[in-house]
């Protein structure tokens, strides 16, 4: 085995760092983490299948449990959907970070010479993609089960903004919870109190669009969502380094 090792191939003293600059490496790292998470999920389907089965079962249970008439259905739709996405989302967030922790891969990420916020953004965007994929599958099923039309541009915008805020906070808190032995239990306990504003705003704004309210009544909730997304994304950018370090 050692015969195949020539000094020239391991350490040839040529530059080993891209001269393109830190910004280029930063964005390339984010893209690499997203690509890695999507590739692994494409093979294992562990995360998506867990989230999806949970979400579909949840809306099915709601369907049988609430025996809703047509009028009430439209008023509870947003609440049922956001409750379902929030609970299913914790499964995805936990699994996404557990993949990094279980084989020590989080250390591999932290050893990379890139600002650690790139790791946060890579993981958060990956989690957002998974959450949106689940939502895109659940919505048609919900539409058929409840006979409600959900394909309204405003509602889809709220889904995106709400999911963005949820995954930003969720990725940050999952990074904290991952260091504990009770991570599966701890994440929802940490996460749900913090995401109450985003869930409340998302439910109210979604209801507004689904019931055809005027934009002036919906805009305050959209503003809350946007402000929440900006604040928590910025907060995660600042504190992620401290959260993941021992």
């Amino acid at each position, binding site marked *: *085995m050692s015969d195949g090792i020539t000094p020239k191939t391991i350490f040839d003293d040529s530059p080993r760092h891209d001269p393109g600059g830190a910004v280029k490496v930063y964005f390339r790292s984010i893209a690499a983490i997203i690509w890695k998470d999507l590739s692994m999920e494409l093979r294992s389907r562990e995360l998506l299948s867990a989230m999806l089965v949970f979400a579909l079962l949840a809306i099915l249970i709601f369907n049988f449990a609430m025996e809703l008439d047509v009028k009430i259905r439209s008023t509870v739709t947003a609440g049922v959907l956001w409750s379902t996405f929030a609970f299913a989302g914790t499964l995805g967030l936990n699994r996404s970070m557990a993949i990094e922790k279980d084989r020590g891969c989080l250390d591999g990420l932290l050893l990379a010479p890139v600002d650690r916020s790139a790791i946060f953004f890579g993981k958060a965007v990956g989690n957002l993609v998974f959450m949106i994929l689940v939502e895109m599958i659940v919505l048609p099923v919900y539409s058929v089960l409840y006979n409600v039309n959900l394909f309204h541009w405003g509602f889809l915008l709220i889904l995106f903004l709400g999911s963005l805020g949820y995954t930003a906070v969720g990725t940050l808190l999952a990074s904290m919870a991952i260091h504990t032995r009770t991570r599966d239990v701890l994440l929802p306990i940490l996460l749900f109190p913090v995401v109450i504003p985003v869930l409340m705003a998302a439910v109210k704004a979604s209801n507004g669009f689904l019931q055809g309210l005027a934009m002036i009544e919906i805009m305050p909730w959209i503003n809350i969502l946007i402000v929440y997304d900006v604040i928590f994304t910025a907060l995660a950018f600042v504190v992620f380094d401290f959260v993941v370090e021992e």
Partner: protein
Amino acid sequence: MIEVRHLVKRFGVKTVFKGLDFHVQSGEFVVILGPNGAGKTTFLRILASLSRPTSGEVRIYGYAIPGQTSAIRRRLGVVSHQPLLYDNLSALENLHFYGNMYGVPNLESRVKEVLELVGLYQRRRDLVRTFSRGMQQRLAIGRAVLHDPQVMLFDEPHTGLDQEASLMLDAILREVAARGRTVVMTSHDLTRAAELASRIDVLSKGMIVASVPREDIEPDQLAGFYRQAISETSS
């Protein structure tokens, strides 16, 4: 090169290091010996900027931990107990991923070089989960040398390796030393320490309790030297 002064590290009420001093010159190959629980892994994690010192000064190439860790990590290669590889990616994909994270230029050719170096080029498209422990550790070494680091940290790298993989690792370690790279390696293996090191330190109870240049000690004296260093701190 590596300067550690008055390092203190606490986990809650437990103090691991109470003022540890440690210095490594450029090109040295330092093996740190010590019993289980002495703090070897914690010490390497601090040098790798994976764990924040409670107090004290840690500098590598003049860059401080914490504060200038990106500059340090660019110069570090780390091999630990765990391979830090993704089971559901192939060997090729793992190295591409880490190459992108390190901003390695000419990545295609460098990945090919490294896979040939660690003897896994034929298995490059196989998922890591199908690899034996030895093959995973070889790929982990490939990951660690991908960006051609100037300082390498090895945390008991021979753990769980078969004879062939251990010999390959020894060959790489010798080459790293021959190329003037600085190495800090923790180990329980006195024989390997005697073969590879230019200096042998003993870490016990959070302190470097003994340090000897390799040329000042015969291989058959090493076990006695180690036992004496440990017993002095135990008493």
